[in-house]
């Protein structure tokens, strides 16, 4: 054998395509957006030039914007929490099913991903609209017509519907990695099923729950189609005001500033969450 064969930079070569794609399609637009957010904007001409932090200042000092930011993160947090509450048991039950059924139900869980978000949003708005079947049923039961659309609740429900697969899949994956004997061991010591799940299964799938929550939270906080179509003009979220700034007011620097702030806030929330949860299991699960 020859001593120390020449090492090919294989890892670099293999990661190059992804790095290029990432650089071209994500980093470049991000940098451009960030730069744009510091430009001055002339309402009269629509010209952008110079350097200013005025947009950031006005967003951060305006209670209108702050309220929208708060609402966005509240909606995203609630949608995430509901996804955990529904998605984790769903994944557990799924992992306990035997094969023909497991495949069938996995497909059912993933099926919403096959339908465009816009179509699903319109589905919800038909369902919950003033003439929709839900209101018809409420009327028939004597509750009277209710305004269901254009409320935070509706947006949250629709977000949960869209995001659930992103919670189920990582949790299901981490459940697949569990040794069933570990749960059996808990049972053999006389633990009830519920105790076994809480004390033994749940802590082991925490990484899956964590990554599922991060995906769901991130996607919900920056969601556009669902709040745009189901929140309407009344219930604004951050992504929808970015859209308004760009396309209605044509104030691109302002839109860019809001987008950058959304990104920053999202990052802070997610990193904090990750730190806190991961700190609990890092040493145990490696």
């Amino acid at each position, binding site marked *: 054998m020859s001593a120390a064969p020449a090492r090919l930079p294989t890892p670099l070569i293999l990661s190059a395509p992804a790095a290029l794609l990432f650089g071209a399609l994500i980093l470049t637009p991000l940098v451009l957006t960030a730069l744009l957010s510091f430009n001055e904007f002339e309402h009269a001409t629509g010209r952008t030039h110079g350097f200013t932090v005025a947009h950031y200042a006005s967003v951060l000092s305006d209670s209108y914007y702050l309220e929208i930011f708060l609402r966005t993160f509240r909606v995203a947090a609630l949608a995430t929490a509901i996804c955990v509450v529904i998605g984790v048991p769903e994944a557990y039950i799924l992992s306990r099913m035997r094969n023909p059924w497991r495949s069938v139900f996995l497909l059912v869980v993933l099926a919403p991903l096959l339908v465009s978000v816009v179509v699903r949003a319109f589905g919800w708005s038909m369902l919950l609209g003033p003439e929709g079947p839900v209101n018809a049923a409420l009327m028939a039961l004597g509750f009277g017509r209710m305004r269901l659309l254009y409320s935070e609740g509706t947006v949250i429900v629709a977000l949960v519907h869209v995001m659930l697969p992103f919670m189920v899949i990582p949790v299901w994956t981490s459940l697949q990695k569990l*040794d069933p*004997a*570990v749960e*059996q*061991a*808990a*049972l*053999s*010591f*006389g*633990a*009830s*099923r519920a*105790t*076994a799940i809480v*004390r*033994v299964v749940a*802590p*082991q799938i925490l990484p899956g729950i964590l990554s599922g929550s991060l995906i769901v939270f991130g996607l919900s906080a920056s969601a556009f189609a669902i709040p745009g179509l189901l929140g309407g003009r009344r219930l604004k979220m951050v992504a929808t005001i970015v859209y308004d700034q760009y396309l209605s007011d044509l104030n691109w620097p302002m839109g860019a500033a809001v987008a950058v702030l959304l990104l920053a806030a999202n990052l802070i929330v997610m990193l904090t969450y990750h730190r806190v949860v991961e700190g609990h*299991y890092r*040493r*145990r*699960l*490696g």
Partner: protein
Amino acid sequence: MSFLELQDITKSYGTLNAVSDVTLSVEKGEFVSLLGPSGCGKTTTLQMIAGFVEPTSGTIRLDGRDITHAKANSRGLGIVFQSYALFPHMTVFDNVCFGLEMQRVPKGERRPRVEEALELVHLAAYAGRYPRELSGGQRQRVALARAIVIRPPVLLLDEPLSNLDAKLREAMQFELRDIQRKVGTTTVMVTHDQAEAFSISDRVVVMESGRITQIDQPYRIYEHPETEFISRFVGKTNLLPGTVQAVNDRAATVSLGGVPVEIDAGALVRGDTVTLCIRPEKLRLTGSGLGRLPGRVAERYFLGSQWLYHIDGPLGTLMAVTPNDGSAPLDTGEPVGLDWTPSVVRVHRGRLAEAPDPTLEAH
């Protein structure tokens, strides 16, 4: 009535019978080992007692109670899983403590009991570690400590010592035996190590492809194996196919490929096809020209306390074991004589499908 009873237990996976018609009674305080080759259904049997595998048919009774379909968490057994099944997110201490917590042992009592159990498996210094920070053998000992700390009426051990070095294994066998004596724990242990099964069990259950082939005391299994499969699986043996040539009231003469050999008569009749089994340590090596058969040393292996010889002779290659008494061993090529007492020869009816190659049996 027995403490733990399995009656006609069968488990099928599709068309495969992992376990067929297993009937076994274990007395209170008894130490029983399930011994058999890989895949013969030992784990499946244990899992049915534990309640993690539902028997296809048959009944299991524990202390007079039918537990065939009882929930696993109502059986109160201590189990060591073949894969250890430690809780990966808990420290060694918490792993061992879990059972005590579930049994609502008062808080103050838990710590000393956990420490005692860890002491027993020589892991007192590792209480604060997580399972992934332990070696395979250390994990296995945690699993053992976790099972014995709850002082269960029945211990089910699935190859609990398979990953330990010889010294530690012996120490743990001694501890297991000691616990079982002191506390009177009924123990069912799965193993495919016959030496382990023999040294600590009251009775050994030999299994072969899902069935029990013999249940007996270790000594009897070794000396009186009921089938030639057992004599081959349990220890080393020389198997010699032959035909009964002559019978009188005390002795029979068996022709082994033309070589006549005298054995105790039993219920044989002239013309029977038989297989004779002689354990290697029962063959005596004598001076050349003496004994019943002539031979020549073909190969010799040093086993520490013993020498294993392969002796070529008129019956093919035979294994012989002699104690290492400190004197010089025989050299290869040296002519010897082979002798034995007729009463040590075991006779199985019928002929082997094919005579096993003794060189393969030796390893």
